[in-house]
């Protein structure tokens, strides 16, 4: 532990710390452009120059490289320091006259005009080497280096040519203090940021999630990309998040793992997917960045999103007119015939957000406004009072005009004529649909699916959370489109169904099971290989097949196959079924008599009336 004095304040330093680090820890501001806590100090920009007094002798030193020795006295704002920084900034401003961060610093030190004419007024690089150190120490791509020397010194890839070593991670552009580096996206190898997707490789998927844990996008993360690209040669690239995480929570070793559990009940809550509006080309989705889906709008207006919650067009401007089109992919026989149930309300909410955050005019193209929930109609009325224009009729088409504006065409059924609106942004309220792999989930759990692709409940009215497979329940949109209150209700019902099942401690099995008449069993073992549940076993000592009633599900396959007729399906016995068949063909005679009697009485009644 070393003790030193900075600007008259006594401070303590750990072994190996620099003056700059100690000063920052104690809230003493020292300007710097080329230092970064994750990188080795380099002392290139010289702005962190301070006066270091040791054994009565004073010297100007860069605080980012000078160790915080015991007994030092440091002055960060003495006249000598100010004078030195001013000279440094004069030279910097002469080299880069048009970089805002340098202009601001220079102004702070009283430098308004560069003392020397600039060779190139567009020069932005101050040759601090932060990018070189980032590329070498963190990314480990070693693409950027200093080249030449003296006045010719510059930064770039070898021979200033494109190199395959560059993975286009963009770390250098983020690190560069003066904005001198630009990334040009050229080919597929370069990570293309999703338009309204995550803004960095480590992000929190849902800000409302508990626990709120970030995840690493392995396709975007520099560490994983370098590892993949070099077949494991560079395994320790970047790791900035790990270095900075005080809780030491970042674990790059973590992998997907399969955990096997023995359970008594399963709740299938696999949710939904958003339907892709590219499939209906009339909405021009993908042809303009300002045609977005409702989900993308949520991302846009989210305070944690790329615009910080501001509703902006792709050009970064506030829209003047916004159209919201309902039922895109829903209630449409070219996509999904069903109503997605959530879109009317979220479209109204989004109209409200646009009105609240911008002055834009809002056009809602709707067919029917389905405000079915509690207080939903009241919300609709409130939005009507917020100067939103409602056009009754499906938005038929979106055209991208040559000037980039968007023209929404549709029929106004109330006016009985075609209308169009030229807008800056179109929000498509797209349908929700069953996940693309619902068929695999269905066969995994023995579920059936209804016509719309969602999982089928055991009974549409009386058993809405149970399935035909005992012990498997449905919750939420896995069963069909639902809004949040309905989902919560449905999930609560599923949870109590599972609790009721588990709490009993025993399982009620169906009485429809197969039984073997052991006197008739000829021990042919045909049934044993047929049973899908291995419920039939052969008892060697008795030389008969026997059914385990707890395992038998009562399908009756063995019954139909038994050559000796020894197996009976309870409640579906041969006698019962044959009697049904006989009964069917005994009916007509009786029925005809009864029908004739009815006809006679009807005729009599009519005769009386006339």
């Amino acid at each position, binding site marked *: 532990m070393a003790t030193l004095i900075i600007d008259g304040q006594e401070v303590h330093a750990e072994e190996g710390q620099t003056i700059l680090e100690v000063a920052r820890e104690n809230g003493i501001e020292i300007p710097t452009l080329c230092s970064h806590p994750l990188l080795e100090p380099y002392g290139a920009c010289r702005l962190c120059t301070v006066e270091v007094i040791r054994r009565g002798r004073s010297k100007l030193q860069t605080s980012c490289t000078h160790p915080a020795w015991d007994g030092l006295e440091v002055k960060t704002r003495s006249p000598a320091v100010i004078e030195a920084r001013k000279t440094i900034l004069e030279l910097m401003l002469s080299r880069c006259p048009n970089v805002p961060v340098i202009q601001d610093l220079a102004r702070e030190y009283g430098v308004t005009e560069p003392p020397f004419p600039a060779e190139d007024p567009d020069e932005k690089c101050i040759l601090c080497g932060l990018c070189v150190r980032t590329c070498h120490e963190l990314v480990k791509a070693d693409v950027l280096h200093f080249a030449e020397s003296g006045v010719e010194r510059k930064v770039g890839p070898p021979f200033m040519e494109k190199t395959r070593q560059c993975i286009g991670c963009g770390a250098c552009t983020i690190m560069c203090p003066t904005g001198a580096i630009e990334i040009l996206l050229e080919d597929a190898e370069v990570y293309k940021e999703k338009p309204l997707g995550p803004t960095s490789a480590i992000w929190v998927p849902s800000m409302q999630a508990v626990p709120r844990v970030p995840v690493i996008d392995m396709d975007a993360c520099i560490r994983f990309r370098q590892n993949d690209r070099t077949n494991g040669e560079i395994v320790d690239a970047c790791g900035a998040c790990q270095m900075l995480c005080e809780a030491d929570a970042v674990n790059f070793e973590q992998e997907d793992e399969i955990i096997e559990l023995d359970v008594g009940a399963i709740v299938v809550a696999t949710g939904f997917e958003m339907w892709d509006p590219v499939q209906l080309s009339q909405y021009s989705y993908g042809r303009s960045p300002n045609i977005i889906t409702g989900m993308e709008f949520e991302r846009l207006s989210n305070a944690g999103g790329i615009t910080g919650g501001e509703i902006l067009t792709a050009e970064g401007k506030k829209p003047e007119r916004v159209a919201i089109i309902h039922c895109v992919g829903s209630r449409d026989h070219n996509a999904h015939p069903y109503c997605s149930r959530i879109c009317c309300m979220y479209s109204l909410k989004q109209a409200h957000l646009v009105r609240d955050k911008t002055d834009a005019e809002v056009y809602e193209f709707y067919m029917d406004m389905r405000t079915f929930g509690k207080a939903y109609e009241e919300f609709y009325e409130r939005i009507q009072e917020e100067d939103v224009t409602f056009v009754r009729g499906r938005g038929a088409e979106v055209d991208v005009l040559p000037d980039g504006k968007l023209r929404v065409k549709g029929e106004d059924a109330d006016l009985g004529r075609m209308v169009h609106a030229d807008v800056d942004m179109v929000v498509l309220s797209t349908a929700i649909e069953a996940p693309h792999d619902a068929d695999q989930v269905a066969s995994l759990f023995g579920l059936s699916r209804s016509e719309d692709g969602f999982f089928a409940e055991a009974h549409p009215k009386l058993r809405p959370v149970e399935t035909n497979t005992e012990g498997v329940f449905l919750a939420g949109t896995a069963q069909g489109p639902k809004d949040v209150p309905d989902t919560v209700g449905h999930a609560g019902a599923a949870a109590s169904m599972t609790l009721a099942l588990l709490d009993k401690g025993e399982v009620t099995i169906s009485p429809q099971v197969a039984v073997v008449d052991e006197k008739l069993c000829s021990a042919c073992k045909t049934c044993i290989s047929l049973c899908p549940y291995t419920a039939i076993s052969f008892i060697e000592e008795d030389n008969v097949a026997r059914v385990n009633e707890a395992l038998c599900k009562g399908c009756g396959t063995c019954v*139909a196959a038994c050559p000796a007729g020894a197996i009976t399906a309870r409640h*579906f016995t041969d006698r019962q079924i044959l009697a049904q068949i006989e009964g069917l063909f005994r009916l007509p005679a009786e029925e005809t008599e009864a029908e004739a009697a009815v006809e006679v009485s009807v005729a009599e009644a009519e005769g009386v009336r006339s």
Partner: protein
Amino acid sequence: MNGTDFEPRIVGFLCNWCTYSAADTAGVSRLEQPPNVDIIRVMCTGRVDPVFVLKAFREGADGVIVSGCHPPGDCHYGEGNYKTFRRMPLLEALLQQYGIEEERFHWGWISGAEAPKWAQLVRDFTEQVRELGPLNWKRELESKED
């Protein structure tokens, strides 16, 4: 009895989980279908003993339908429909030997979600059997017995 006022009697053996629920849905949805099919519910088409089909014809049916869950994977019991898949072609061959036209016997798959397909099958199959006319198997057998 000629073709026009002949109403065929058809027996349908439907599995509880797929085609029976499709037929149920078809009824609840009020899909239009002729009343000629009498349904006998079995838990699985794997339960359909070929004897049932023969018995239906013997008792006077003009046509028989056996319908269950789509293979692969739809069967509530995993593979019951595969048993049907193997048995029914054999039964078909047997029926022809008895002189019963193959158009009088239909076996196939209709899932619980395919109510319209069930209604369509009932319409088409009823017309198909109507065109063939009555089977009169019962009368013939009884006359031979006498």
